[in-house]
């Protein structure tokens, strides 16, 4: 990677983070239905793990300046990083068996990631109040996790075909 590609990477992170932040703020009224997780999964699939982690950190910190900063910021970053890692592991598995991941399979994967996100964010309550509080908090939030998961599923189906083409073109420019 030369200097020019580094600049392009930064600009790409900036643009994608801006899209994520705008979507988080614009869709505030809808509970947990946001394209952020889908976009992060797609960017990890094309650009790799490091890009996804950088995008996650920028997205969370800047959007929480508007939506409210708190201890949950760390846990949101952590949960999206966990999602990045799981995506990377899945992509590596697909590289090993030399196949392209199917659209529906990845959509189901992003559906599952909605629950993973909810679980990791709820760990904050485990830290504060032990297993009792964690259990009640998590069970109370399962409905919203489901909304998040369903939103991920449809946003992946909408975003993936469009963003994949653009991202692959950009990746060719980067290298």
């Amino acid at each position, binding site marked *: 990677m030369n200097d020019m590609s580094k600049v392009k990477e930064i600009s790409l992170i900036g643009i994608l983070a801006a899209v994520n932040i705008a979507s988080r703020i614009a869709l505030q009224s809808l509970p947990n239905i946001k394209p952020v997780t889908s976009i992060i999964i797609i960017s990890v699939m094309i650009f*790799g793990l490091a890009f996804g982690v950088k995008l996650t950190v920028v997205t969370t910190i800047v959007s929480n300046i508007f939506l409210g900063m708190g201890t949950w910021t760390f846990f949101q970053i952590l949960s999206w*990083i966990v999602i990045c*890692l799981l995506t*990377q592991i899945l992509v590596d598995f697909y590289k090993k068996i030399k196949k392209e991941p199917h659209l529906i399979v990845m959509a189901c994967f992003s559906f599952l990631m909605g629950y993973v996100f909810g679980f990791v964010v709820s*760990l904050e309550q*485990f*830290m*504060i109040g*032990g297993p009792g509080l964690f259990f009640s908090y998590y069970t109370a939030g399962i409905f919203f996790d489901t909304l998040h998961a369903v939103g991920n599923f449809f946003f992946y189906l909408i975003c993936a075909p469009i963003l994949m083409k653009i991202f692959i073109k950009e990746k060719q420019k980067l290298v």
Partner: protein
Amino acid sequence: MKKFVNKLKQMDRTKKIVVLFITISFVFIIGFGCYHSLFDTNVDSKQEIANTNSIEDIKENDLEDVTDDSNNISEKQQSDVEVDDTKQNETTSQTTKTNENTSEKKQTSKTTDTTTSKNTSQKNTSQFQTTDSSNSHKNETNSSENNNKTEANQDTKEDNNISVNVQVIGVKKMMMSGTVNVENQASVYDALVKLAKQNGKTVSGSSSYVTGIGGLYEKDYGPLSGWMYKVNGVVPNKSAGSYKLSDGDNVVWYYVNYE
């Protein structure tokens, strides 16, 4: 195990860093959560050991008092305030600056009705004069009260002694308890003072308003904390100096904190 190590070595740098970050944060979270849960359980078990049956009963009663009506408490404290007011009126000198301060604070926090307090204050003073024994300021200024008191004592000497059960319960622990023999028609305050003498503890405040027992004072645990008493499970709307005991009464002094 070797395979696992090889896999770890084969991972690229970013993946290693990410895995390390996630494992460290998860270990931190789980450690913190386990520590918290263990700590909480320890506290619970200690409380269970410390609690006796009587304390639990009183706690329940307290809860009922708080939930049902706070009239009892407010009335008790109101009456104390009124007694303080009358004291100030009678003494007219500025000897009781602390009393003024406390009464002012209470008035601001309690919002007492001035009309009712005027009516009841007269009653309180009459009760107060007969039984007041400890307030030095009062004794110095009012000699007539002393006469009344001595007359009352002479009356009671002729009667038989009575025995009452007195318990003093502080914050989550029994401070002292026992049976005391007092003269007939003695007040709750007299019984408390006698028990405190037996246990080598001090009672501060006056017979109309007990501010502290055995080093535990009002307002130690918040602005609305202090000592209250019950006779046979009922909270009387009288000051401790004016409630007359009868034989076999159960008196419980307990520390409350109404937040």
